[in-house]
Structure formats: structure tokens, C-alpha cells
């Protein structure tokens, strides 16, 4: 799934740098084999339509947000707004297609945690709701997707280490490419404080799908021998809308 349609509002340039990292972590995590495996091997989710885990994965990757007219485009339409009020517990919330993040939390949290927050809120834009009982988070789609994305992002964040001495040559190259791409893709729009970010290169749906399929096949064979990733049981207090 691509994350190329990102619109931001009220984020300062410095905040966009952080946001950009969070979104890239989100993008990498959601397109990973680990994410697919974690969703498919998860205990059945509690949904109104009683979706199977494979169906939930497909819905997440479809990019069919409830409040945009794009239909299934395998593209996450993210309309991100910074809420300048102070929040004591919720990191953010979703209102129709807009994802709001409280500024105090945006400043405090690591990009990995923010990646999980955006994944959680993105599930709301797809139509999944929070549980009515906050003690039942383990089978709730937005909470679990947020947790899984955060965990994968934590394991992937190595290339975001500032000290390049700790990186391998390929990681250094990857970091340079990403930095260049990030700088060249921030396009200001007509509104003074509204910005459009393109976090990954545009690709046609077919090409991307084929590439993703190839990668899945390769990685599946490679990871077959590995034991399944241990599921963390520690509960964090993730974003909720």
C-alpha cells in the first residue's frame, strides 16, 4: 500500500520532519511481511461484520477509506491535522477523513509511537471503531494494528539512527536516499500552513502489487524456518479517537 496522498495542516516545518519519519516507519511497517503475518495469525478480531483476519488485512491494504471517494486504490489517503489543545490521555482522534493529533503528544512521542498512532487512526478512516469496553483491546482492529505497526517500526527504526557510524554501508545509502526523497517531495499548497507530503515514490497499482507479491513470496520462503515473532503482551496506551 502506498502512502503518497498525505495532506497536513498546522504542522510546522520542524514537525513535518518528525512526521515524515513517522509516516515512513508506518509505510515500511504496513507493507512488511511481518505485518501481514501478525494480522493473519492474530486471534480472531472482534468486528461487527465478523471479518476473518485475511479479510481484515485486505481491507487495511485496500485503501478504501469510508470518507473519501477514491474507492479501492491501495493508497492511504491521510489528512493529518495538529490539534493545538492539550490532551491528558488520547494521542489523537479521527473525524471523518481527518486524523487529528494533539500537539503535546506529538512533541513528546517517538516517531515509532506516532507511526502506531497514525495506523490506529487510519483504521478509523477505514471504518473500524474502538471497542466499547477499553479492557477489550486485544481483539480490536485499530488498537491491535496500532500496536503491531509500532512494534515493527521499533525493529525497523535502525536506519533512522542519527549517528551514521553505527550503520552499515547499505543502511547509510538507504538513509541518504530517503532524506533526499523527503526533501524533494514536500510541496506547499495554497493555504499558508497546509502542506502536501509524498512519502514514497508513486507507482502504478499493478506494478506495486506485483512487486509486493514478489517480495512476499521471497520473504515467506526465507522466513519459514524462523520461529514466529513473539507477541508482546505488554499493553501500552495507544491512540484512540
Amino acid at each position, binding site marked *: 500500500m502506498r502512502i503518497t496522498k498525505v495532506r497536513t495542516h498546522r504542522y510546522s516545518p520542524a514537525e513535518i520532519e518528525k512526521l515524515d519519519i513517522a509516516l515512513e516507519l508506518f509505510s515500511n511497517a504496513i507493507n512488511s511481511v511481518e505485518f501481514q503475518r501478525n494480522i493473519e495469525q492474530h486471534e480472531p478480531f472482534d468486528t461487527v461484520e465478523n*471479518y476473518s483476519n485475511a479479510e481484515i488485512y485486505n481491507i487495511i491494504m*485496500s485503501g478504501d477509506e*469510508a*470518507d473519501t*471517494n477514491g474507492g*479501492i486504490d491501495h493508497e492511504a489517503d491521510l489528512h493529518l491535522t495538529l490539534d493545538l*489543545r492539550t490532551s491528558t490521555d488520547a494521542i489523537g482522534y479521527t473525524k471523518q477523513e*481527518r486524523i487529528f493529533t494533539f500537539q503535546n503528544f506529538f512533541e513528546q512521542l517517538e516517531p515509532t509511537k506516532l507511526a502506531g498512532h497514525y495506523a490506529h487512526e487510519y483504521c478509523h478512516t477505514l471504518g473500524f*471503531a474502538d471497542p466499547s469496553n477499553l479492557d477489550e483491546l486485544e481483539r480490536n482492529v485499530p488498537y491491535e494494528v496500532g500496536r503491531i505497526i509500532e512494534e515493527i517500526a521499533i525493529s525497523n527504526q535502525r536506519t533512522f539512527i542519527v549517528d551514521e557510524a553505527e550503520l552499515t554501508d547499505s543502511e547509510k545509502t538507504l538513509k541518504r536516499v530517503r532524506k533526499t526523497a523527503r526533501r524533494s517531495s514536500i510541496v506547499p499548497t495554497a493555504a499558508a500552513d497546509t502542506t502536501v507530503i509524498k512519502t514514497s515514490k508513486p507507482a502504478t497499482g499493478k506494478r506495486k502489487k506485483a512487486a509486493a507479491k514478489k517480495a512476499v513470496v521471497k520473504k515467506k520462503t526465507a522466513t519459514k524456518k524462523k520461529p514466529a515473532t513473539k507477541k508482546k503482551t505488554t499493553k501500552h496506551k495507544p491512540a484512540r479517537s
Partner: protein
Amino acid sequence: MLTLPKLTLITFLFCSFQLQAQEQAINHASAVSITEPASRYINLKKQPPREIQIPATFSIQIDQDFLFRFPLTKNEDRNYTQGTAFIVSHPGLRKTWMFLPFKKIEDLTGWEPYGSSIALGGTAFTPRIIDSSAPIVGDRPFAFLLYVSTSSTLKNQKKTKKGKLIEVYNSFTINYGIFGTNIGYRFQSFAHKNIVKGRPTDPKGWNNQISKGGAPALLFDYNRFQPLLSAPKTKGTIDDRSVFDLGWNLGASVGYYDRAYTGLYARLGHLRNRNQARWNGGFSSLASGSYEMAAPEKKKTRFKDVFEGFLYGRVNGTLMFRNAMLVGQGFKHSDYTLKPEWTNVGLYEFEWGFVLAFEYFKKGKTGPKTWAFQGRSIYRSPEFNSKLFPERWHYFGSVGLMFPL
């Protein structure tokens, strides 16, 4: 003659066509979007998830001089005699073609959508004597407006250099109406026969109403509301409660009312701060249109603390440059109108009332549902002075009932 209503109509139509053309061009250019049913692409036989509960509401509002009770002696069947509106508030409205102008504003400014509503309403104005075939010269003319009102409220936040948070709610309203139908006569005749007995059942004066036979009417309105303070002082968080708050608004409209206005709005009671703009929303009378704001944000503690109840007061000042319901529409002949020099430019209103509201969540769903009841009394300064009658204030009451959809 290019009158103001004509000019506004032409401008609006021109802008609408431009918007539609742009929209079509955008749709045509984007080849990425695939709008096939979900089941075809991902082999999903079930419907896409729609677990988010939409905070939509339906409201009925009735303005009636008969409803005015404080003091009862001021209850008179004249001036603004009746207004009724049926209002649907739904976040999805902003994506419909009727809300294209508001969507364009939203896209241009980046302000966040706070509420959208559509209303069908009618308002009637009469002089004191309603059964005379001849116009009552010096008193106001008969006028009936039937309209569809579309409205969208957009919220903006910013911080001052000192770090103080400022929230502004910008409401845009367009009313598409018609003057001069026979509804006013029919309704008043029916009401005096069946509901409020003792008044003339054959109000012949409607034959002299403004733009008799029918003429289009438009109104474009902008209203800016800003919360000023709340007590006890809150932290600016999403779930703040207080017992008193104060806000002010500033607005203007062109069309059948050419005016600028401002007001102060205070609440006292068991308040939810984030709803301050929501309950302030709306005009003092339905003649300006009507709007509601669906409950915008969810609260921290679910299934608890659902009640909001308060008394409120509002004072409005208006500079009314032209009121088509008094002086007629420039492009359509009316048998009787007031002379423009008889109308008062400076007007003011006092309003007080109460709101009782309940917000709740359905099990397994997010997004609050709202029940609400509102009652109010409005005191309006004289709108005209023909010197043939003594100047008089106008008093009317209003009730509103809101249901969740």
C-alpha cells in the same frame, strides 16, 4: 437593472459552474482511483466496515410570537409571526453537490469541518391588521419566505505569540428561497381556525405580500464565532467542563438581508466547553436560515457524564442596510412596501433561553448521539418607523427539538 440579488445569483451560478468544471477536470485527470465494489477486488463478500457511528441529527424548530411568555402582555400576533424549519445535520452533507461552495472554502483554507446541515424552512411576517384587503400604509407589508438553507461550519485553531490558544468557528450559510407563495395565507388561515383561535381566519392582506406570485430569493451569510473565556478556568482540553462561558460573534450577509452584525453569548450551567460553538450556532430567527452542528468530537469517558444543561443569554447588534421583507425586491414588483427611509438601520436584540442535551454512545460504536431541547425568548428593537404608527419592539418565542439520526 442589475440589482444586488441578481448580482449575487449570477456570481453564485458562475462560481458553481467553475467548481463543477474543476471537479470534473480533477476526476478526469486521476486515473489512479478505482471505484469498483470492494468484493470484486479483494474477494470480500461482506460490506466494508462501517462501525463508526455518525453523529447526525434531525431537528424541528418553531418560532412563534404566540410562544412568547415573558412577559405575556407583549405576546402579539404581528411582525415575525411564524417560522418553522426542519433541519438535518450530517457530516456527510459536505461531500454533496449542494455543499460544493463550502467544500471549496474548506479546501482553500484547510479549516477543519465542524458541522454541516441542510434545512427546509418557512417564515411569515405580517402587520397588526391582517384581514384588510387594502395595504396598511405605515405598517410592515406581508412577507412569506420559503427556503432551503445549506450551512457549513469550519473550525480553525491558532496560537498567539504568548502561546494562548484561539479557536474560531466560521459558519457559512446559503439560503435558496422564494417569496410570494400562497403558503403564508394558507398556513395563517389554518392556524387561526384550528390552533390559535380568536384571530381573523381569512387574512386577506396576503394579496399585497412582497413579490406576490413568486420570486427567487438568496442569502449568503458568514458568521464567525470565537469563545472568549470560561470559568472556572480550564486547561483547554477536549473534555473540559465549566459553569460559565462567554463568546462573541461577528457576521455579515448579502441577499434578501444586507447587513452586518455582532453579538455576545454567555452560558451558565453544567457546560461542556467543546459544545460552546455548537449551541451558539444558529440565528436569532429562522428568517436568516438555520443551521445545526452535529456533535463534533467524542468524549473521554464513555457512557458517563452525558448531560449538558444551561441557561444562556445573547445580545446582538445589527446594521440592517436593506431588508427585502420590508422594502421589497428590486427586480420584482410588490403592491405595497415600506419606504427605505422608514426602515431603521441600527437594530439590537436580546435573547435568553435554555438548552437540555444528552449525548450518548451506542454499544460497540463510537461517535455520540444527541437528544436536545431548547427554548428561548427574543426581544427585537423596532425595525421601522413610518411615523404613522408608534415605533414598537417585537417579541417572539422559539422551541427546538433535536433527535439523533
